[in-house]
């Protein structure tokens, strides 16, 4: 049985798409067939981050409206085996994501893949609700910052009420906390919420802490998920994140202030 996983946050720009791209890529690298869906209809971005923007012909909404079938719309990743992308439509709006339509597509995908990753748009409207609607597990992406934490709590409330699992009592959604753009220097100085603070406030199990890293911008410039950059701290943290998700017991890295060597300073890593 496939696992449907939503990557969500409430607040915009916290790293949902970055996380979705790397997480899906990591699962595929570990040998699991994975598809990642962009639910951000009208503001599609996942294709850019995955570097497949020029290969988009049909999209999610075309499939919902039966203007194309899944085989036509799915884009197979060129670097990693077992990985496909279902891009969002850039010309429609989020109302195109009907419950029936989304449910049908997810059901079909669940027959073909082990993992279905849903990259949620920001907000709490139709797009975000549909992205979480059919989920079995949720990755809640949070930045160490007040508005992001508050919005995450709101999203946790919705996960507990607006999802199929919440409604039909088929067991609660399993929730995971991923803290991104974490800066240990500022957290140590007390200028930024610490990992413990956020964990305490949201009270869901911590899956990963991804450090603030220039390599994320670099990766999106290149159109290659940062997890493929083995040398970067963010890439390594996402790698750990995937392995931990799959059951490995790994300590959290990059929580401490990094003592920068001359070379790494030069390379901005």
């Amino acid at each position, binding site marked *: 049985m496939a696992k449907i996983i939503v990557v969500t946050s409430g607040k915009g720009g916290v790293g949902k798409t970055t996380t979705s791209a790397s997480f899906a890529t990591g699962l595929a690298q570990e040998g699991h067939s994975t598809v990642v869906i962009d639910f951000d209809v009208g503001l599609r971005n996942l294709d850019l981050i995955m570097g497949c923007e020029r290969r988009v012909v049909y999209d999610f909404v075309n499939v919902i409206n039966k203007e194309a079938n899944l085989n036509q719309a799915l884009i197979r990743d060129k670097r990693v085996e077992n990985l496909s992308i279902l891009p969002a439509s850039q010309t429609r709006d989020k109302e195109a994501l009907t419950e029936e339509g989304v449910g049908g597509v997810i059901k079909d995908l669940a027959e073909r893949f082990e993992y279905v990753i849903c990259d949620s748009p920001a907000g709490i409207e139709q797009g975000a609700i549909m992205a979480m609607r059919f989920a079995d597990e949720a990755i809640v992406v949070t930045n160490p*910052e*007040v508005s992001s*934490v*508050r919005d995450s*709590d*709101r999203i*946790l*409330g919705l*996960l*507990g*009420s607006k999802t199929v699992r919440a409604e039909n009592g088929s067991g*609660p*959604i*399993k*929730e995971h906390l991923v803290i991104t753009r974490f800066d240990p220097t500022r*957290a140590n*100085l*007390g*200028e*930024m*919420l*610490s990992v413990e*603070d956020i*964990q*305490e*406030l*949201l*009270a*869901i*199990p911590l899956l990963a802490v991804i450090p603030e890293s220039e390599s994320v911008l670099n990766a999106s410039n290149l159109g290659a998920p940062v997890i493929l950059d083995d040398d970067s701290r963010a890439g390594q943290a996402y790698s750990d994140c995937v392995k931990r998700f799959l059951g490995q017991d790994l300590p959290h890295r990059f929580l401490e202030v990094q003592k920068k060597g001359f070379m790494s300073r030069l390379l901005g890593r």
Partner: protein
Amino acid sequence: MGFLDIFKRKPKSAGIAKERLQILVSHERAERGAPSWLPDLKNDILEVIKKYVEVEQDAITVNLGRDSHREILELNIALPERDADGQIVGSTTAAAKVKLTSNTTASKANVATDTKANSPAVKNSPVSGGQQKPASGNTSASPNPAATNQATTTPSGTTQVDKTQGTQNQGTTTQGTKTQGIKSQGAKPQNGKNQASKNRQMRNAHTKKPTAKSPGAKT
């Protein structure tokens, strides 16, 4: 800025951020599960009080919490305190907790009233029909030990959330839980395995929240 100023800015902002979030988030969690009539009830009560005392629109907070047996409707009303010339010199909070045993009405319920003075040392003075309360530190003790998390206000105006309750919950991810003492009473003690479901319960329950609008903050 002098070199030494670096050391003066010690009360760092992350601590304040966390404190604000704890209060806000528990408020919002409480509102999430609240019945739709709660705002109307609040308005009506406010109108009644206004007939007798001059109070601000935000002087009243109404929370619905619950323990394992019943729902608890909690009212907090900040009443202005005046000196001999009628000048407002501070405020007193009158807090009432009404326990609703499932579908019974409030008239049958057990009403306890505390008066909280405008100082961190909170006096307990049961006014009407209150049960005998255990003395418990500086929290305004309520009949239900699970509902004793109160925000008290220090003279400097910072809000502190008392975290003495709910300790058996949640192992490592504690504080958020502790401020929600209501949960620790309502549910059977569970172990870490069931954490996700516990969190959900906690988040969606009508959780009691710390009294954020504390009287001292206004003076």
